């Protein structure tokens, strides 16, 4: 039996006009990478803010390493490292100075301070840049510095709030590598929020899908995909698909049918053996097909299955606006 690193019970946060987190309960095991997946505004950051003692819950409770987040705030703070969604670095200070600040705040003794700073700088490959002011860093470098800082004081639980938002694909892969390596080598528990499917899939042992402040699913990535019961055939369509969709629903070998304005998505086993009858049926029902694709189910499909909508990727959610602002880095 593994130990519980994070436990929440009916955790709730109400703001004036909205309920950001609506009574969520879950456990994160020690050593686990726990993915928190949901669209922008689903309540991910609010949950992290409550768990890291920055805001108080309206209702419910949570424990980190057995410490209550309201009654034992200092013990909780000592047990966690946080990499916030928006950078929380001082741009006027150098990378090393930011880490020194952190070391002092966490009461690290002088000897350990120097060696540990060198260690975490090496881990994120920022030794060369340690003496440059952070305002001159790129977005990816800032992120890496923050990860280094979050690890400085050897926390038991590391929160990563949208660790790769606003970063290019290459830098994102880089960060993933660090995260995996960290968990493999140190066994640190991580709670990672993201609205990127492939990120949750690639990194998490278990994924919690959250939407409008509520938990809609919680399981391993594989088990979540199994729920869909097979492969996916996606058809790009034009014209009225209603009759075709009915025909597919009554076909015994199709498990699930989801229809959109310009596409139909079928879930079934051994999809490759059913492409011909599907296409034939489409033709028979007067649906013209623009594309046909077969794929293994992705978390996207899982998300649609549980929430009935696609996750809002990109676009102009609040997080994206913040990421844009960060890019300008007025004061760093």
């Amino acid at each position, binding site marked *: 039996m593994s130990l519980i690193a994070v436990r929440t019970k009916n955790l709730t946060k109400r703001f004036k006009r909205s309920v950001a987190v609506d009574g969520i309960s879950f456990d994160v095991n020690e050593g686990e990478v726990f993915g928190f997946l949901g669209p922008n505004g689903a309540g991910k950051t609010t949950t992290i803010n409550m768990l890291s003692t*920055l805001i108080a819950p309206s209702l419910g409770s949570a424990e980190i390493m057995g410490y209550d987040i309201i009654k034992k705030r200092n013990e909780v703070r000592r047990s966690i490292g946080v990499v916030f969604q928006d950078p929380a*670095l001082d741009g006027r200070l150098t990378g090393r*100075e930011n880490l020194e600040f952190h070391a002092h705040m966490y*009461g690290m003794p002088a000897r350990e301070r120097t060696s540990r700073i060198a260690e975490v700088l090496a881990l994120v490959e920022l030794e060369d840049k340690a003496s440059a002011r952070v305002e001159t860093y790129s977005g990816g470098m800032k992120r890496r510095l923050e990860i280094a800082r979050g690890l400085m004081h050897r926390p038991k639980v590391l929160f990563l709030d949208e660790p790769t938002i606003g970063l290019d694909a290459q830098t994102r892969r880089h960060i993933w590598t660090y995260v995996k390596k960290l968990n493999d080598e140190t066994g640190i528990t991580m709670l990672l929020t993201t609205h990127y499917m492939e990120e949750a899939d690639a990194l998490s042992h278990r994924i919690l899908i959250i939407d409008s402040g509520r938990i809609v699913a919680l399981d391993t990535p594989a088990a979540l995909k199994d729920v869909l019961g097979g492969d996916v055939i996606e058809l790009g369509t034009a014209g009225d698909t209603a009759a075709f969709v009915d025909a597919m629903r009554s076909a015994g070998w199709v498990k699930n049918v989801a229809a959109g304005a310009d596409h139909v998505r079928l879930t079934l086993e051994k999809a490759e053996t059913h492409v011909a009858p599907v296409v034939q049926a489409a033709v028979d029902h007067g649906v013209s097909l623009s594309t046909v694709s077969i794929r293994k189910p992705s978390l996207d499909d899982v998300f649609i299955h549980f929430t009935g909508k696609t996750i809002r990727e990109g676009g102009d959610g609040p997080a994206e606006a913040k990421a844009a602002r960060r890019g300008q880095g007025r004061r760093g």
Partner: protein
Amino acid sequence: MRILVVVYILWLRDMKRFMRSPSRVVGSVTLPLLTLVALGAGFGRIPIPGMNSPNYLSFLVPGMVGMTILFGGVFSGMSVLWDRQYGFLKEIMVAPVPRVAIVIGRIASGSTTGVIQATVIALIATFLGFALPSLAGFMLAVVFMVLISVIFTGIGLVFASRMKDEQGFGLIMNFLILPFLFLSGAFAPVNNLPAWIRAFSYADPLTYGIEGLRAALLGTSAVPLALSFTVCAACATVLVLLGAWFFETSEAV
């Protein structure tokens, strides 16, 4: 011990930031300096009844020293808002440190910059004909500089802990700061004011701060030195505690 380390590192960070933004160093002394030159040069030789000092310039210097520190204290509050906006406040607030240490750290750096700026003002004033006091008098003046700094940095922090937008903070601070300043007797002797206004003046901690500075720098003041010191020290203590309480209960995001 633990608190001292935290206070030190917060202080050090603010000092580095201060030293690395020359515009802040220059900007913070410009207004008091211009006021000193404009009023001091204009009225410098005219004796004003009830001001207990050889000339208006000497009377004005402690007032401008107090004004510099007043503005500096408010600025410390503003820097909390910047930290909030640029995210660094979260790094501070998520750390396992007593909130009182965070408040004292801010006040320590606010006081240091305040005393530096105020000393610059006093030194520049000597070129206009201001006579510097003895070393003992100057040290006593530094004590009052620190106390005024603690009080107004504290007030700035209390508001900053609850406010999120800079414009709003600036507006409220202006609304507060100017009465503090004009009632304090920085520009004209409090005793010349009508009695009903004077009542407000004696409720203004800056009055005691500036009178304390006058006692230290000029050797003469309208309020006894011991009273000035007691009121300032009491206000400073209250504001440190109040600031700590506001930070303890504030939300960092």
